């Protein structure tokens, strides 16, 4: 029996710690106790699909035939006016009742056009990966702030104490590393727990002793802790620590259960483009995301690649074939699967990236960073499907209609969950902080 099988064989839930511990744990001292938002939100959780490196908008969700014309005419562009426009390598088609135009790179996702709300007028504050990745996640492009997932966890708590409320599926680290899922000054329980995939998907999850022996050890531990507590009367801090062991113990069994796809049908696996037994790739991440969503995790972030080998196609845009190939079918599969299980209505699916790419050439056949305009989309809980919001000019260089800043985007995400983003605050270093700093407007026309 290998380690994974052993983990899988664990019975979910702990028999080691007495129920009394849970009772002693006053809800007020538990940072993860379920909490009601400001108003009834349509979404109960978020699946946040983050594409690392800056996805070219003009090659994906904002196709621009104008680029070809401009390139043929030899129109000059770029910061110094010495660049030529680069046409997309992919043709675009219209999809769904809404006629959403998408290039072939995302042809599978595009089939769900009538569920998507594509924003073609996104803009952010920084043109470098590190700062922009921080900006998208925390609202701050300079110093560290809590991640959007931490804010959601802080606002809603969790429904499943055997799992963390905020899970990040990241085989590699994006720019700015774990800072993008840090709870920063929010209580540590709201920080993202990283899942890498592969043989040991969660750090320190692997028992250092076989299960039977760990049970003996934890049994002894629980007994001594209980006696320690009994001698002292009730103390929520002590019971919370015992509870955390219970959760950790629960995670040791429930997490492997999340990763155990043996009960998924072949049809489901093929939706995600997964072969049976596979434990890597974006399809694996997407199916894990659905399984975490089913188990009450509040914020599930999926990061497709790391700080190299990503969408940062300075030299050759054709690199996007492989990058889109990794994510397109799994994303479509995830949306279909959520839909068929009736979960899409209460799950907000977010697809975004740190910035777009220049309509003009860089390197041999690539594009530069471009934060003045890019595309992102929302789908599911609280969002109107079949909508295109905002517009860029004929080459995708300038936003000409309905600019949506990262702060507006984040405010809208929080709104779908039932939060007034101006009131979801935390007092730190002498003032109230929030995800959107002093900015942000909910983009109301996108709401269902």
């Amino acid at each position, binding site marked *: 029996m290998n380690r994974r099988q052993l983990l899988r064989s664990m019975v979910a839930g702990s028999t080691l710690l007495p129920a009394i511990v849970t009772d002693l744990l006053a809800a007020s001292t538990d*940072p993860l106790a379920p909490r009601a938002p400001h108003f009834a939100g349509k979404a109960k959780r978020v699946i946040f699909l983050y594409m690392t490196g800056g996805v070219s908008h003009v090659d994906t969700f904002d196709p621009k035939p104008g680029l070809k014309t401009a390139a043929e005419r030899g129109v000059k562009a770029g910061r110094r006016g010495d660049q030529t426009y680069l046409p997309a390598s992919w043709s675009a088609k219209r999809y769904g009742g809404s006629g959403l135009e998408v290039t072939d790179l995302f042809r599978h996702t595009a089939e769900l056009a009538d569920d998507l709300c594509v924003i073609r007028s996104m803009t952010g504050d920084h043109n*470098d990966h*590190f*700062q922009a990745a921080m900006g998208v996640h925390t609202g701050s492009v300079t110093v*560290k702030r809590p991640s959007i997932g931490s804010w959601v966890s802080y606002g809603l708590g969790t429904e499943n104490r055997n799992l*963390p409320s905020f899970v990040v599926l990241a085989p590699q*680290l994006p*720019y*700015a*590393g*774990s*800072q993008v899922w840090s709870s*920063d000054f929010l*209580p*540590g*329980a709201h*920080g993202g*727990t990283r899942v*890498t995939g592969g043989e040991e998907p*969660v*750090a*320190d*999850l692997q*028992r*250092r*002793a*076989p299960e039977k*022996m760990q049970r*003996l*050890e934890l049994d*002894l*531990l629980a*007994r*001594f*802790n209980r006696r*320690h*507590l009994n001698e*002292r*009367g009730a*103390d929520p*801090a*002590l019971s*919370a*620590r*015992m*509870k*955390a*062991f219970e*959760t*950790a113990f629960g*995670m*040791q069994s429930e997490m492997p259960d999340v990763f155990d796809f043996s009960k998924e049908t072949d049809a489901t696996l093929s939706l995600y483009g997964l072969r049976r037994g596979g434990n890597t790739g974006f399809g694996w991440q997407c199916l894990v995301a659905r399984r975490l969503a089913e188990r009450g995790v509040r914020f599930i972030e999926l990061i497709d690649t790391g*700080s190299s080998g990503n969408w940062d196609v300075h*030299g050759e845009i054709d690199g996007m074939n492989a990058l889109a190939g990794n994510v397109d079918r799994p994303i479509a599969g995830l949306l279909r699967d959520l839909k068929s299980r009736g979960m899409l209505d209460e799950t907000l699916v977010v697809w975004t990236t740190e910035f777009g790419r220049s309509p003009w050439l860089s*390197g*041999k*056949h690539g594009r530069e960073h471009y934060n003045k305009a890019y595309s992102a989309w929302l789908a599911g809980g609280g969002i109107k499907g079949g909508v295109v919001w905002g517009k860029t000019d004929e080459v995708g260089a300038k936003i000409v209609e309905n600019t949506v800043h990262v702060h507006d985007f984040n405010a809208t995400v929080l709104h779908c969950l039932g939060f007034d983003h101006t009131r979801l605050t935390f007092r730190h*270093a*002498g*003032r109230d902080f929030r995800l959107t700093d002093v900015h942000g407007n909910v983009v109301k026309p996108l709401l269902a």
Partner: protein
Amino acid sequence: MTLRFSLLAVPLLASAQDPGAQAVAVLEQRCHQCHDARTRMAGIALTSSAEVTAARDRIVAAIGYQAKVKMPPNGRLGSGEAAALTSWIGAGAPWKAGTGASRAASGHWAFQPVRRPAVPGAGLPVDAFIDAKLRERAMRAAPEASRETLIRRATYDLHGLPPSYDEIQSFVRDPNPSAYRDVLDRLLASPRYGEKWGKHWLDLVRYGDTSGFEQDPYLLYAWRYRDWVIKSFNDDKPYDRFVKEQIAGDELYPEEPEAQQGTGYYTIGTNRDMLYKVEDINRVETLTDFVDTTSSVFLGLTAGCARCHDHKFDPIPQRDYYRLQAIFAPFQKTRVFLHYDMARGYDLQENTRTFRLHETGAQLSALLDPHRKALREARLAQLAPAVGEAFATPDDRKTPEQKALFEANAKKVEPSDDQVFARLSKDELAQLHEIERRLVGIYKNYAPGPFSPGLTDAGREAPRTYLPAKGGGDGEEVGPGFPGALGGGDIPEPPRDSATTRRRKALAEWIASPANPLTTRVMVNRIWQYHFGRGLISTPSDFGTRAGAPSHPELLEWLASELVERKWSVKEMHRTIMLSAAYRRSPRLPPAAPERDPENSLLSHFTRRRLEAEEIRDSVLMAAGSLNGKRGGRPVVPPLALEELYGMSQPVGNAWIVTAGRAEHDRRTIYMISRRNFRMPLMEAFDRPEGVLSCARRDSSTTAPQSLSLLNGPFTLAQAGALASRLETAGHPVAAAWRAALGRDPSAEEAGRARAFLDRQTANLGSRQAALVELSRGLFNLNEFLYVE
């Protein structure tokens, strides 16, 4: 304001008797939201005497709530408020110097001079104040804690480490009436004290060994400031002197390098000094950091909001903020020479060394480049001709296509060093070894120089400071000075022969003065908080008008005055606090405590606390017998698993240069490197702050990943192994384990269960040693181990 303020009511009454101040406060609180210089609703601003007088009839009518326009629209003024405003307007609205915000704030209790109150009753003063409050609420106090509990509490509070079994035993058996005081004296005299209290200070001053942002470059000599802080606490440097050395050691003590080391305070925050292109922005951000950190650390004021606007409730209006900023405007980061001749010698040597290295580099090129070129050309010859052309064309003449080709193939054709070395002739190899030998000669005694990071002024003249203008750009010029709410005052021009502006000198003297109402209150409250887990003011870096009321206002006053009485000795404050019965109480809840005082703000018992991140790591090392007590020096970089290091924005090989020597890795956590962009996983899990902003109070979270990390993580596993090895040779391994980890003997029941556990695990795992590892790790995970009470 509640009745708690009985003793502090005098200044409040004084402000109430000043109708002008009261009227301005009414305007501030009820009118300015819509009628200040910025908002100007209906074109009306009420921020000066002239404006108020011009609008007098409309104001009187509107607040009378009889006319069509009723103000404030969200509710009529109280009759007292309306009367004060009307009579003040009737008197011509005499608006004294200073802004409304600072005038309204000037009545705030924390801005009044500290007055030493009478002690209510006999006994230790701290207890007299605490007990009076308990009596007021008819609450009983818990009895004194057991000696075992007490010495553990005191040792963690002063050392951040547990007492040894022997220390506990000797205290428990000590019949001497001064036994407890003797323990405190011993703890305060130990250098471990500075390692614990220095850490509190480093949290406050946002210490780090790197400067943050994407590249997170090293602050090469930051550790000298860290060691200076530790030494200052160990020397019991008077707090006023400690403050002065940090704020203006260069101006106040020009002949004392050790004192000037204090100015390292300014240099160990985040900065972009290595990004030369953004020097202007960096300078502004650095000034912001200086104002925000200085005002919150030393004065307990949150000035940050005023950078952009006058905040309705904050005592520091924008003008005062920029007056503070002007104090730092002439700053220049510098190096403090710890020993002038040695520093000069070091620089001279470094100068020669650099010249020699340039020559060595040239020799290496001459030797290796021909071979590298030959290898490169051989490889290029196998690629398309266009690639060869791209390589042959000089960089500035390459077409974009050639640049792309060059970039695409540069790595491919570049030979490795080993491939180059393989081509060297015997003679050339000898030359290479000669160069290697010379390099070893140059570096064999290489060590950090006698420098410490510091700060001074660029000269006698300072760049001008302006208020931000509406719509961007510079507005009115402001000069250096102190906040109006704290009495104000301008800083004069320095004498003609001065080398600096002496602005920070003035600031240092103003802060480190017994007359400053905040300095002592803020510091004694911090000391109190680090002992009890909660300050008398629960917002330790916010003593402004929005701070909550102190739980024991008179005690805070008494302690603040006592700090000056005791010649600013922090160690004396520890004694004063720790000798009190309030500090010595059992953690057991007395009757009625949970209902009447759930947060234990009245201190009827001792509040249990979880160990801090550093305490956990240090305690595990100590229990395992691995702790290396070596003090000071360069930050230590312990080995971590590659997986744990993935968070780096730099290549790991550059960002995590592991320190040589196994024993170095087992030193106290305060000596481990603190990177701004990456915390060691165990530290991060247990809420160590990241050092970007001043941290006055740590979070103490309880999470499942913490448990996973202690249960399954590599650090606890390795240390459990170390403890287990010691246990193997012990006559009574279970007793030895309890003594090492918990500082006590196991009860009969515990010993029985532990032995049964060991037997079963030995059978299960097939080895006694493995079973002992399990037991050891279990002990590190006990609440008894992780909490101090």
